């Protein structure tokens, strides 16, 4: 079986056309994700506008070292993901495998660091509800946003780790050719998860520090 027939699927007449469909479809999905997280970010912005001081006081309790480290980890994972796609386009199978593996490892590292951070947050009692340690009460709105936004982001990242792991294994086993158009779609999703975190960094960790 030739390489082209392994890469090309129905109903696409050419690999180029299939590649366009993959990226176009992913971007439409990403647009819906932008609006999904956008609703959350809008709610944050409105409540922050209404209770600016409470939000600053609440945000000062977040773990900025974990947050900044995790940003660096995710940005680096975006580099390895972008390199995986480049390597796959050049037909460099070994390099693609290594870059995908590094991406998965960095994704897992992010979740581990996030786990330490969640542990520290919970030790400080920063879960909204009765007996919340901070005042005024609007600080709980910030922390509700914190748990929901970072939690949903972590779910997205977990899905990303799963998808990248699957294509890595398929490539390793040889069931997926290195030129497969699937890598483009997987990479776009990964970069989306990174981009969302880029905006969570100032919203969650950097306000109220000065």
């Amino acid at each position, binding site marked *: 079986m030739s390489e082209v027939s392994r890469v090309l699927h129905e109903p696409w007449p050419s690999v180029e056309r299939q590649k366009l469909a993959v990226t176009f479809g992913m971007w439409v999905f990403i*647009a819906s994700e932008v609006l999904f997280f*956008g609703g959350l970010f809008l709610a944050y912005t409105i409540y922050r506008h*209404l209770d600016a001081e409470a939000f600053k006081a609440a945000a000062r309790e977040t773990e900025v070292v974990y947050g900044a480290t995790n*940003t660096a980890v995710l940005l680096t994972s975006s580099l390895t993901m972008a390199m995986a796609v*480049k390597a796959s386009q050049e037909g460099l199978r070994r390099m693609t495998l290594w870059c995908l593996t590094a991406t998965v490892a960095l994704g897992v590292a992010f979740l581990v660091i996030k786990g330490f951070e969640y542990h520290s947050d919970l030790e400080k009692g920063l879960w909204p509800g009765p007996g919340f340690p901070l005042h005024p009460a609007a600080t709980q709105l910030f922390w509700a946003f914190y748990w929901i936004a970072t939690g949903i982001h972590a779910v997205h990242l977990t899905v990303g780790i799963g998808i990248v792991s699957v294509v890595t294994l398929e490539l390793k086993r040889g069931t997926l050719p290195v030129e497969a158009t699937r890598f483009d779609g997987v990479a776009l999703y990964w970069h989306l998860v990174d981009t969302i975190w*880029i905006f969570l960094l*100032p919203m969650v960790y950097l306000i109220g520090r000065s």
Partner: protein
Amino acid sequence: MSDAGRNTIALWRKPSLIWLALMLLLGLTVGSAYIPLGIGNGLINYGVAVAKAALVLVFFMHLDRSRALVRLAAMTGLLWLVFMFSLSFGDYLTRDWNGSATTLAPGKKDLATHERGTFPKERMPLVPRFGSRD
């Protein structure tokens, strides 16, 4: 060095520079957050976030060499996001019982006190004022 090795280094060059720029921007935004700059802090933090996102979108997500169709699809999410934010804030920023940025009802002294305006009870805000209950 073999041709393959040289080729690999050439592949890494541009993405590594983008990554370096992202790391410098991260350092700038975290570092500046601790310097009191008033409104400047927010401007730098969100400006850097937009710059970082733009680098990821344009270079890592390849919008620099995408077809018009793909670029349009990528921009639709942002377009509707702009509508969502501008319409919502067109509402919130023009209601003085919500700490509005526009003119206050007569007799109201201070924006920051979160006092209710002169509206009748049945037109009270939908958003509960958490801060005032403490």
